[in-house]
């Protein structure tokens, strides 16, 4: 399913992935499936086990798995698609890095101090941080990035909530001010930013930490920046590798940046090229690529035993869910307008539908355990916040039937009618385009039929899908149930998806209790982690009670890494860095 990741913060990892969570296990060998052919993400390493002695230099081949060429907007300030991030990760990086729970650390190219009220941040850029063309990186570059993103002519997607939170940004954006009042350049290497509001999510991804090289971009009109050669052909970053050559859309050759602030990279060269998902297995088997950015999870079981790679795995920061339309979007008031008479407004009906589906079996059968039954709306990629003790609603078709019987949905022939005796036909829409979307959706329909619900499935393409669930605020009244997926931001705050004022709250659910919990999660008090944990635990509980949507599957991602590769890792907070990646042989090992 199309996963629209919540957080605005791109990943800092060279793999460009948005996953996380160091896996608890550290078993050295490649994971084995258990007897029934199932895998468990906790059995995977997320750091490559090194074998033998690394050689000096060497070339690493990286496969960017994508069925489209990468767009080539090679600057964090402008890019918009996943493929570009994977390219970016090799030659550029954010000034701030974060730890396993996504809180900014002081290990990056810049360090920070927070004021007492939590609204003013003072950043200090390390002295040895230079652009790859040799120009030192300055605080002005950082300020410049904010100015460009806030500029009315800016055409990228980065002008978001985090940006608006910078004091004076809105005025600057509207042209009422020619400076952003909240940003202050203290010295060449020191910058101070004042935010309007301080909340727990500010230090987990609320700061824009990608500078823009002013000495290169200052003469380019903002409108033309994203199409300029400085973005597309000769991009310059601060990362461990430098772009040497680009074949637009298909490949990039990087060479090491000896001037990298953390130290000289081990590899001489990295060759990145786009690999079609349908060929990725062949490329890995033949050693055509050493590593890939992502791997189609359905092809993993057949290749788990490949002799030339080690599989790394991690929990993905995303979940699939099924949503129920409970109202509409009130465009005038800019908020959700719940409709108590909606077809799906009976919580028993929704619960019964959750009960009717066996996601455990789905995860095992369709994904060999690499996706598994989801319980709450905060996935285990945020292990502290994810309430493992909450079982959600478990599969029990008999209970579901009883629930429906009790709620007045009487069986009349094959199907149940509404409590008022009228016919009940539920329209369920789902997106085409992903490997397993279709049988999965059909499985749900079948499961609902088992408990006597007449659900009609429409598989539609993603534009039409989001149009109908109401991404522009115009909900299609014929839709009752939908299946979609969300990526979760690095901060857990779910208000962007479930708040009363969130247009992406497609279920159009709102309640006072929900409002209260979401507000508390971002309140001053929530800086106290224990408090925040409690709030979100309550929220997860509320969602299981109310079932405006129910999560279906959590996900793991797995990637193969050629055995010659050293120090490769996936996920955040591993204390591993790109410049350390090395190889132990000249050529990739091919599978036997």
């Amino acid at each position: 399913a199309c996963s629209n990741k919540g957080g605005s913060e791109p990943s800092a990892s060279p793999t460009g992935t948005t996953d996380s969570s160091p896996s608890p296990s550290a078993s050295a060998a490649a994971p084995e499936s258990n007897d029934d052919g199932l895998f468990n993400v906790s059995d995977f390493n997320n750091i490559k086990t090194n074998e033998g002695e690394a050689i000096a230099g060497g070339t690493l081949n990286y496969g960017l798995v994508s069925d489209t060429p990468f767009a080539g907007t090679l600057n964090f300030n402008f890019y918009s698609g996943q493929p570009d991030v994977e390219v970016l990760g090799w030659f550029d990086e954010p000034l701030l890095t974060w730890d396993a729970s996504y809180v900014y650390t002081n290990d990056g190219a810049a360090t920070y101090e927070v004021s007492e009220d939590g609204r003013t941040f003072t950043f200090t850029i390390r002295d040895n941080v230079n652009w790859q063309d040799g120009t030192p990186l300055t605080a002005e570059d950082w300020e410049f990035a904010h100015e460009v993103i806030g500029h009315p002519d800016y055409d990228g997607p980065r002008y978001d909530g985090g940006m608006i939170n910078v004091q004076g940004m809105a005025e600057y954006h509207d042209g009422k001010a020619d400076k952003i009042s909240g940003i202050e350049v203290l010295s060449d290497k020191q910058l101070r930013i004042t935010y309007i509001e301080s909340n727990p999510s500010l230090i987990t991804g609320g700061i824009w930490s990608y500078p823009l090289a002013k000495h290169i971009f200052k003469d380019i009109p903002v409108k033309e920046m994203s199409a300029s050669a400085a973005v597309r052909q000769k991009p310059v970053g601060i990362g461990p590798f430098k772009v040497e050559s680009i074949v637009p859309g298909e490949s990039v050759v990087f060479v090491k940046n000896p001037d990298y602030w953390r130290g000289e990279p081990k590899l001489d060269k990295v060759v990145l090229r786009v690999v079609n998902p349908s060929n990725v297995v062949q490329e890995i088997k033949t050693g055509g690529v050493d590593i890939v950015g992502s791997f189609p999870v359905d092809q993993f079981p057949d290749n788990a035993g490949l002799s030339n790679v080690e599989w790394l795995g991690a929990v993905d920061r995303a979940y699939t869910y099924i949503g129920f339309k409970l109202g509409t979007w009130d465009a005038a008031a800019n908020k959700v307008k719940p409709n108590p008479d909606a077809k799906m407004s009976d919580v028993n009906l929704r619960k019964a539908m959750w009960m009717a589906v066996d996601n455990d079996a789905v995860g095992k059968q369709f994904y060999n355990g690499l996706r598994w039954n989801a319980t709450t709306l905060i996935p285990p990629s945020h292990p502290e916040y994810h309430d493992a003790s909450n079982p959600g609603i478990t599969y029990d078709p008999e209970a579901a039937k009883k629930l429906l019987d009790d709620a007045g949905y009487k069986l009349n022939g094959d199907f149940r009618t509404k409590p008022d005796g009228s016919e009940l036909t539920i329209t369920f829409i789902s997106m085409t385009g992903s490997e397993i979307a279709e049988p999965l959706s059909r499985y749900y329909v079948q499961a609902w039929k088992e408990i006597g619900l007449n659900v009609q499935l429409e598989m539609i393409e993603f534009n039409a899908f989001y149009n109908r669930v109401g991404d522009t605020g115009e909900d299609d009244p014929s839709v009752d149930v939908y299946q979609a997926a969300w990526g979760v931001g690095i901060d857990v705050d779910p208000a962007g998806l479930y708040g009363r004022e969130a247009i992406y709250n497609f279920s159009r659910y709102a309640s006072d209790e929900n409002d209260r919990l979401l507000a508390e999660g971002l309140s001053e008090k929530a800086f106290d982690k224990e408090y925040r944990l409690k709030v979100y635990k309550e929220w997860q509980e509320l969602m299981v009670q109310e079932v405006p949507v129910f999560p279906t599957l959590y996900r793991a991602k797995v990637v193969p890494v050629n055995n010659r590769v050293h120090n490769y890792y996936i996920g955040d907070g591993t204390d591993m860095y790109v410049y350390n990646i090395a190889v132990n042989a000249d050529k990739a090992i091919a599978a036997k």
Partner: protein
Amino acid sequence: MGKTITRRFGIMVPQIILLSILVFLLAKQMPGDALTGLLDPSVDPAVIESQREKLGLNNPWHIQYWDWITKAIQGDFGQSFRFKMPVLDLIGERISNTVWLSLATLILTYLIAIPLGITSGRYNDTLSDRLITGYTYLGFAAPLFIFALLMLWLFGFKIGWFPTSGSVTPGLEPGTLAFVISKMYHLLLPATSMALITTVTTVQLLRSEIIDIKHRDFIHTARAKGASESRIYNRHILRNALLPIAAFFGYELTGLIGGTIFIESIFSYPGMGELFFSSILLRDFSVMITIILLYGIASILGALVSDLILGLIDPRIRIK
């Protein structure tokens, strides 16, 4: 000749305008637009709405069309939303790949078709003719993409003779010999896979033409002059038999356009086909419209080229 060309261009203009209107209407009818995919809860919907407004996506179609066509006439086909660059530059980046692929396929198509067609037509009803005819039937019936997939699997991965993706080995300096060779090397498998399938119609056409022509009276005349078989084939039959193939050239081009879409997708060869797909999926309308128009123009030019070739080699067709 100049007159024909100007007249043809005169006809082309309304055709292209009509086509652009059709495509514009289609684009307008598609659910969603370029901003649909931008589901980011941290971005204020108002910002997205203001972008829509800025891009003119909220205007009625005829106003959008008028804006578009007036600019297009001045050579500005707009900006790709996804790539954030002018459509023409974007297409310029991709088109050379597709052109090379088409050209290689075209050349291979004829390289295969002409000897096979001649053998089959000249020695019709012999064993080799039957084999060739059998091949053409199979080629006609075999789905191009399955065949190409198998070729990729076999020669790309199993035997490993050919590169399996991309248009050039990464890191080569454009313009160098190594670069050109690498480009050709990358072209070979996709172009051959496609040519082997698309050539069959040409083989069949050539065969039936030759069989037809070899019974014509003027062939008797040539024989009666004492011309040898080889001279008869080379001088008399072949030229006449190639006429309809030249006439077909324009359609061959149009057919290629369809074929390259499959081939590009199978061989991960970044070209126009892929660009078209992603632009239609992501509602990058300016790109989509320009590509369709470009292909429309290409097929008109193909037909024109066909006619010109025909006019050059067939004296009966007079081109004023």
